[in-house]
């Protein structure tokens, strides 16, 4: 190639680049922009719909009241496709190019771990309402984040306490092979062996995150006949697993303990076996307080369906964020970050606070047994629900501090 042609190509290109960057730097100052890094498709699809529905509802309601600090709210969504690199890139784009004031986290914990770094780099507050790796608040902690979802440690230790009371001795495990699965399994195993040193873990199966075809794994999982299988599958993946495992007779021989949130229960529908021990993060049907009743009604009126755990926790995150803004009278993350620690907020799950050391809200899990309910004809829910409060199972401040130093 002739160098002169090359030079023309490059110069044209650079000029275009500078021009576009100039054009795109227009921004309206009277809005609060919320960047939602979302896992839109695949096994996370139903979660995304619930998260987005709650966010839209919150924004609609706030704007009807004149916005926050007189500024209208606006949501910008980007798909991170459950890939950490895509997530980090879109988070950066949301902050720098879209000029978002806050970020809302994704479903995948692996993506969340990538995003939290970006939030820290650009000093913008992000909250996590679904992705819940304990690492976010310990080894990978950074102050510009807070978590309103029970983390993997809380979930796993809560489940271990729940299961240890039962007579099971032979345990199996199946989980997605990424941050969430590993973090949950490590905590679960540690707590279970502490409570019940004589249990036997007979089989561990790791599958790719987002796996849909479980037929190659089910016979292996069953081959050593575990009495109970603990799983860190979730959403579409868990629902697929249950549907595919039934004809193998898995539920005749074992029971399955996992995250039975409303979306997963709805997805699985009538294929959900009765009598499985499981937990939920925020079951609207089991939490009895006026805020939740009001929210459930609003949500049902707008969307003609019940709010899933994800909708409730997304809402709670916005509530906490709003408290911070009110307290500082500012939307500047640098100011907000100073009031996160110890902040009290009126969560739909009741009054909650955010612990100063790790920015973890004191949210526990809800354990119960799957069963039919006359109010909900299309799907099963958890019955005899009990709350395992966060204070009982979260890491002590000393443990958190030790991990954060790493």
């Amino acid at each position, binding site marked *: 190639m002739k160098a002169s042609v090359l030079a023309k190509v490059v110069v044209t*290109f650079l000029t275009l680049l500078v021009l576009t960057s100039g054009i795109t*730097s227009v921004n309206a100052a009277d809005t609060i922009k919320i960047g939602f890094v979302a896992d839109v498709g695949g096994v996370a699809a139903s979660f995304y719909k619930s998260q987005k529905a709650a966010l839209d509802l919150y924004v609609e309601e706030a704007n009807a009241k004149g916005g926050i600090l007189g500024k209208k709210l606006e949501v910008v969504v980007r798909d991170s496709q459950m890939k950490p690199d895509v997530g980090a890139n879109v988070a950066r784009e949301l902050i720098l190019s879209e000029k978002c004031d806050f970020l809302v986290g994704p479903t995948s914990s692996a993506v969340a771990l990538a995003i939290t770094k970006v939030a820290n780099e650009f000093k913008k507050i992000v909250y996590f309402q679904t992705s819940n790796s304990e690492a976010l608040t310990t080894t990978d902690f950074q102050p510009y984040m807070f978590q309103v979802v029970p983390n993997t440690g809380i979930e796993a230790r809560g489940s271990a306490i729940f299961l240890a009371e039962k007579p099971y001795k032979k345990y199996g495990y199946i989980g997605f092979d990424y941050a969430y699965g590993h973090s949950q399994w490590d905590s679960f195993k540690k707590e279970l062996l502490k409570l019940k040193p004589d249990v036997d873990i007979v089989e561990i199966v790791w599958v790719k995150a987002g796996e849909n075809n479980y037929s190659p794994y089910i016979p292996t999982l069953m081959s050593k006949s575990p009495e109970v299988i603990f799983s860190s599958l979730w959403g579409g993946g868990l629902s697929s697993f249950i549907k595919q495992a039934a004809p193998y007779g898995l539920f005749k021989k074992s029971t399955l303990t996992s995250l039975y949130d409303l979306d997963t229960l709805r997805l699985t529908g009538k294929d959900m076996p009765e009598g499985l021990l499981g937990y939920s993060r925020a079951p609207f049907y089991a939490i009895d307080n006026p805020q939740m009743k009001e929210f459930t009604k609003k949500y049902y009126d707008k969307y003609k369906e019940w709010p899933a755990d994800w909708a409730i926790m997304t809402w709670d995150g916005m509530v906490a964020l709003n408290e911070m803004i009110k307290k500082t009278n500012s939307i500047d993350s640098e100011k907000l970050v100073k009031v996160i620690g110890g902040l009290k907020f009126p969560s739909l799950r009741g009054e909650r606070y955010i612990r100063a050391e790790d920015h973890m809200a004191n949210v526990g899990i809800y354990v119960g047994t799957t069963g039919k309910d006359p109010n909900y004809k299309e799907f099963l829910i958890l019955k005899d629900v009990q709350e395992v409060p966060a204070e009982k199972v979260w890491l002590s401040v000393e443990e958190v501090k030790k991990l954060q130093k790493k």
Partner: protein
Amino acid sequence: MSIIAPEPGIDMQNQLENTTAHKTNWVIGGIVLVLLVLLPFILQTQGRTGEFWIWVTTEMLITALFSMSLNLILGYGGMVSFGHAAYFGTGAYTVALLMKKAHWPLFLALPAAPIAAGIMAALIGWFCVRRIGLYFAILTLAFSQLLYMVVLQWYNFTGGDDGIHGIVRPEFLTPINYYLFCLAIFVLCFIFMRMIVNSSFGLTIRTIRENMERATFIGINVRRLQWINFIIAGAFAGIAGGLLAELNRFSQTEYLHWSRSAEPILASLVGGMYSLVGPAIGSAFLIFLKIILQQLHRSLVEVWAIILGCILLIMVLFLPDGLVGLYSRIFKKNVS
């Protein structure tokens, strides 16, 4: 066996032009370089958007380097590798692991990237260069997917699907400084690649592309030279991978996936394969186009893959000599 060869004779003509127009080339190269150095300072005046574009241009430089490295085997060597991401990813993981797990500083970890990638390319390439044409392409694909699966499954060491996050960055490497740092490396690599391409080694590689049989008859050790070329290309890809790991501050299995291997091939096709800078311009153009579409309308990025696919279809069916070829055709300039 000739793969993707341009019209015969053009190469030689190109050589002649290169020597006669040598001086002007350096002058123009210098002007382009000055513009590239000034670019971030102009962008900086745009505030946060400018910061975004500095980040984008840094990414352009890195992917450009990656595409150029592939082109050493693709355009100059005439060998279609569908597994070049393996070396890119090796570089990225080398930097990530050394910095995160062994706490090496960036300036020690970065030079290790091309070395590790080169070793990986030497191992894989040793088998691959024994195959030609389609079998070569599939074997490179098989090895890169094997490596991808190893990294994906080895959770305790590589972090599996999570990747490795939170690579530290030295304080002085602000976005602008990192851009300039990448530019410096890019220019050094460019000069080095240019020397390789124009050396007797580079000419021999092109001879092999034009006619492998004849090359064998005149006593060239074809496999050995192709192997060396493969290693060099792998090492340059490793540098690009290492730079991207530091820019993004993480390394991820996607860097090793076969769809990542396709990207520099697309860039080479868009930019034109028979020059050193063609693939670089191609990859910069593709990134630019994607972001422009996103800025124009959000829904356009939803169909980005369709747009990219259609561009590719058009290139494949009508413009196999790339954008640079199109440019010269429009302006009726005779460039090769």
